[in-house]
């Protein structure tokens, strides 16, 4: 009930605020993009696996769109999005196949290494990726229609919101399924899980591919919203940011990462106006406060105050 209420308020906010303040539409689109990627990171965090490398899949999603748009001449919105999900999913499967053997810090560091290889390749393979100049992405056609930039931005925001609800619901069902519940068991005692006849590598591989797809979709939306992409998307600080967003929001549910993304992008937007020099500082301090005082993240705060009101 409480969750449904929070969800309705959030969705209503996403529908109403950009309509009232058009300049916020861009910020909200980025919230959805980062939220998708952070949700992917949060799914892995449930198994105690911290990936400081998921920006790679975010960047792969973005570069798939960029490549289709500026190199292959595919200027259709839905194929671009599907391709981003597919390519990041396939890469997630390839990387995940050997990543599922590692736990703890080595999982974190291997993800970091893979993403740094990806970052360097994106930066150095100039003829393919445009190097550090990046790629520009033209406004794509939607269902065969050529839209103005403003109309496309609305499509991106509201289409992204609809997609967030659909994928968020799927992720929620997944987390409540035996496969999803097994993630928490991997963290607490995976040997017991193996005794029960559950294949831990399979549980983790499924989660890894799913998280890669979510990050890829987020990256695609990011690319389409900004219209230009650079290799920095794959740099480790972007990965750190995604983990930060997931933990800020709270990894308990599907909504948490989106709340975290909303917080991060709001602070970024506010900092861009009033304090452009210290936005890292504000985010860092915010993160410390959440870790030390709100172990269940910002979304946990909503849950807690809601619980009190109910009592």
């Amino acid at each position, binding site marked *: 009930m409480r969750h449904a209420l929070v969800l309705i308020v959030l969705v209503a906010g996403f529908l109403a605020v950009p309509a009232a303040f058009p300049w916020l539409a861009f910020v909200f689109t980025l919230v959805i993009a980062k939220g998708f990627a952070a949700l992917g990171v949060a799914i892995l965090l449930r198994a105690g696996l911290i990936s400081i490398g998921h920006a790679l899949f975010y960047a792969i999603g973005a570069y798939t769109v960029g490549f289709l748009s500026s190199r292959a001449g595919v200027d259709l919105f839905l194929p671009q999005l599907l391709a981003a999900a597919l390519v990041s999913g396939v890469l997630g499967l390839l990387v995940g196949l050997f990543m599922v053997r590692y736990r*703890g810090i080595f999982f974190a560091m*291997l993800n970091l290494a893979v993403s740094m290889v990806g970052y*360097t390749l994106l930066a150095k393979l100039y003829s393919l990726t445009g190097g550090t100049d990046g790629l520009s992405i033209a406004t794509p056609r939607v269902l065969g229609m050529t839209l103005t930039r403003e109309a496309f931005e609305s499509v991106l925001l509201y289409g992204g919101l609809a997609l967030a609800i659909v994928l968020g619901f799927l992720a929620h069902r997944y987390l409540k399924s035996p496969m999803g519940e097994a993630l928490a068991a991997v963290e607490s005692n995976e040997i017991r899980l193996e005794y029960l006849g559950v294949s831990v590598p399979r549980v983790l591989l499924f989660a890894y591919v799913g998280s890669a797809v979510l990050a890829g979709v987020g990256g695609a939306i990011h690319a389409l919203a900004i219209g230009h992409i650079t290799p920095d998307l794959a740099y480790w600080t972007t990965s750190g940011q995604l983990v*930060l967003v997931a933990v800020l929001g709270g990894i308990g549910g599907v909504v948490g990462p989106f709340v975290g993304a909303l917080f991060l992008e709001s602070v970024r937007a506010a900092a861009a106006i009033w304090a452009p020099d210290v936005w890292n*500082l504000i985010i860092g301090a915010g993160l410390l406060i959440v*870790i030390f005082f709100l172990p269940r993240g910002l979304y946990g705060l909503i849950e807690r105050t809601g619980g009190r009101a109910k009592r």
Partner: protein
Amino acid sequence: MDFILPMLVDGLAASALIFFIAVGLTLVFSVLRVLNVAHGSFYAIGAYVAVVIGGFVMSAGASPWLSFPILILSAALVAALLGPAIERTFIRFTYGKPEAVQILVTFALFLIFEDLQKLIFGVQAYYQDAAVSVLGISDIGGIIYLNYQLLLIALAVVVVVALRVMLHHTRLGKMITAVVADPEVSATLGIDTRRVYAAAFTIGVFLAALGGALASPNSGVAPGLGAEAIVLGFAVAAIGGLGQIEGAALAAIIVGIARVVAIYQMPQLEPVAPYLVMLAVLLVRPYGLFGAATARRI
């Protein structure tokens, strides 16, 4: 093939700098069990402080030979000011917490330090190369070396030896070894583990700051230095086996040589070399070259 040797010196000098970061990281990890993302910030701050103090003293007309003590004293200053303070205020609360929490707390510190550096030192690049120019170059059999690079390699060797002596032949070192082996029993035996943690962390900060300070005369200092340093440090520390000092040294040499080979064969892929080495090593030996899955030693 004449250029192989100078390139090797180049590569080893770069390894020496990465080694300073990685060995501090590895020491802090083996004692505190915390993977410190903010370690890269200490490297950058060490570089900034050395360049600013060095520039100030040099512009006052001092002898360029003074730049060497300045490099080392700057690192000591950074360690003395930041080491105990950061350990006491932030790191201490993450002991025994999940790795995600530790990485995030130190990542938050890293973000805060990034902006503090920009606020204090600005975004322009700093140069202060008195230490490099005063040492000059040497010409051995027609091959020209930068003497400063040879000094870096020698200093890295000194650090390895000093750490070994410190850990095995001093009171503090024995306490550190005991705490690494079993913190609870050591505490029962009367070792003040809190002080050991603070000391180990401060040594780690000193090594990172020293790496930054020593890197500054050759390459200058600009924003983004810390972010680059820490990923390289992670890669080298992981290759060596987290918590292994000799492992970090060997890994630094391997990475340095890998970069030289990359420059020689495929210059575009030179920045990827450390990570490819890391992937290759961890695929075969999941705990790194020297890391044992069972007992850990330093």
